[in-house]
């Protein structure tokens, strides 16, 4: 354009000159997470409203595998730990550690997804399809939406990891990593709720 960069605009981009002194991207992302609460809230409501309303089996207690899902839950919790360690490393400029922990986070996310794939195909073999009964429909749509969120998170983390390998991610991108982390932890807390509401309270 016909106008040059001014210091003011650069300052706004880094959150120093904003009215609330907060980073705009981070604020938008927290608003997004708030919005996601209503998305998952509606899905969980649907699951609970239809709980016990299935006309035919299989019913939850016949298929849900608690030991296996406990492992998945543990896996996702550990990925959250890896994520905060990745962020801390990037913030202090330790990109060597940052790369490792970003990769570990993504890897644990992938393990979770493989677990979900195994779980879904196992359920289908046991006779619980998407359209078998209301339990099947609500279960697959709720956990599937969560799984889709994990998938997006894994792709996002791998993108950051590749950027880091190419030397294009540094402490100046700490905000980007922090926002990725917010997303990842949010996906984790949603799973904490799903694990309790769907798996443990049968």
């Amino acid at each position: 354009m016909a106008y040059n960069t001014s210091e003011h605009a650069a300052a706004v981009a880094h959150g120093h000159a904003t009215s609330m002194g907060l980073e705009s991207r981070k604020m938008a992302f927290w608003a997004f997470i708030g919005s996601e609460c209503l998305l998952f809230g509606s899905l969980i409501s649907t699951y609970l409203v239809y709980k016990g309303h299935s006309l035919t089996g299989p019913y939850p207690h016949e298929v849900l595998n608690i030991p296996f899902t406990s492992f998945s839950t543990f896996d996702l919790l550990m990925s959250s730990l890896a994520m905060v360690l990745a962020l801390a490393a990037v913030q202090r400029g330790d990109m060597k550690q940052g790369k490792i922990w970003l990769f570990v986070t993504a890897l644990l996310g992938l393990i979770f997804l493989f677990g979900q794939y195994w779980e879904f195909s196992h359920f289908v073999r046991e006779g619980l399809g998407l359209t078998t009964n209301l339990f099947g429909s609500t279960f697959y749509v709720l956990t599937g939406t969560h799984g889709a969120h994990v998938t997006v998170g894994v792709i996002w983390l791998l993108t950051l990891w590749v950027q880091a390998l190419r030397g294009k991610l540094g402490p100046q991108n700490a905000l980007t990593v922090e926002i990725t982390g917010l997303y990842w932890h949010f996906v984790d807390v949603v799973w904490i709720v799903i694990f309790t509401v769907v798996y443990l309270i049968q």
Partner: protein
Amino acid sequence: MKSWLTTTDHKRIGLLYFWTAFIFFLVGGLEAVIIRAQLIKPDGGLGVSAETFNQLFTMHGTTMVFLALMPLSAAFFNFIIPLQIGARDVAFPRLNAFSYWVFLLGGLFINASFIAGPLFGADRLSVAPDAGWFGYANLTSRQFSPGPNVDFWLLGLQILGIASLAAGFNFIVTILNMRAPGMRMLRLPPFTWMTLITQFLVITAFPVITVALVLLMFDRFFGTHFFVPQGGGDPILWQHLFWMFGHPEVYILILPAMGIVSEVLPTFSRKPLFGYTVVVYSGVVIAFLGWSVWSHHMFSSGLGPIADSVFAGTTMLIAIPTGVKIFNWIGTLWGGQLRFTTSMLFALGFIAMFIIGGLSGVSHASAPSDLQQTDTYYVVAHIHYVLFGGTILGLFAGMYYWWPKMTGRMLSEGLGKTHFWLTMIGMNLAFFPMHFSGLLGMPRRIYTYSSGLGVTTFNQVSTVGAFLIGLATLVFFYNLVRTRWRPITASNNPWEGATLEWAIPSPPPVYNFTIIPTVANRLPLWHTERHAPMDPLPLQPPAPIHVPGGSWWPMITAFGLPIMAIGAISRTLPVVLIGALVVIVGIYRWAFEPFEM
């Protein structure tokens, strides 16, 4: 041309929103006129078939709510909000462009159903949505709606929801984070405040309709039974999810108009807004209560006495903050030096008509009385008094008020007053008799009625009114286009407004403010008892101002969404995947493109 396709300038995006939404408004109006023409005669009317009639009223409602009123408000959010808060643009200019393109393409997608029949092997040209604008289950199930009609509706609304959500995050951050120095929250102009509240409603309500539409999509595309009783599903759950979105949506439609009126009345009364803080807080209370009343749309579904009483109570409560606002507007007028410009007339019309709509609304709050009114023309009367008498009159007030700022040209006051009086007479002729035809037992959404019902005269009066509204809108349209060949140049501040948008030229330069002003009070441009007006801004920027360049990626990313929808509706997985690929590539290029803010 390229500069419009790639623009990230909030003012250009505002104008794009305005013209797109205005054209959809004309389309929705045309649908209404055909509906009313059909009903001018009982026993078969003018021969519009029941199927066509279903499509017309469904598309009229859907178009007006999602493609006309919301985006017309969005046109003002885009154009005016950054100016009112003293910013150079919104917080995320490319996301803003993305919202616009998604809205345009989503609107075109839904309306494409009018001519898509042959592609689906239908025996008629139009396969437009036909299950009503709130698409009640199980009318929308594959069993009762086998064609692509409802698929167009649900996929289109899903696309439009993405546009609204993206804009919601953008404007929340813009208003909170991009304010000029000294522009504290309680110095924000009321329109900006109402916009902020509206966006909070958008980001909380739209995820709920997203879920409802996803479940409906699974029912229709993959054979689940979320809303199908044969499989144990409960159609009432659809109503809950829809109205949990739908009632906040009502306030998403009305709060921006209330904000506009709260700008127009003080300017043309030459008085500060009476009880500014109370107006702001009652807006917050309306939004909060707006989330707690959804089931009053569902009294007739048999919720039981406890739920009925709770929702009746919360609904009556919401009349309090609304009434507070009305008293504050009247208080603003009291003792003011009134100037009856067209904008002011529309704002006054808003108050009067909205009171009528509000009163019939309170009569719905009483569950026993609502049972008599449900699904009759009485409800149609109510919704049109609040959405036409409220939102549209408010938006017209805003159009006359801000058109000079947006284009640098004044609208004709003579034509404007013709437009106003035709609209007022037309809308009361059209909608007032509906109270009577409704209470006499005329159901809404019926393509014809029996001459024995005794509602023929009321319907004929309504039809005459609808045609007057149509005529009035044409007068307005002529007034708009006339400014192109008969320009009357507008000054910086033609109405002597008090807020920051009037401190800069009309239309504003691309960078908006030569220097970012420092704000010391709520009425920076006015001389009041307590303060003098702020110093005029320099005519030239003291230093070069950075303006972000355009970007293709918001538009390209947006194109992926209707491609996915086309793939879904035609059951072609490869097309869905191509659409998804466009979205993914678009997002990556967007994220890694050098774009300086």
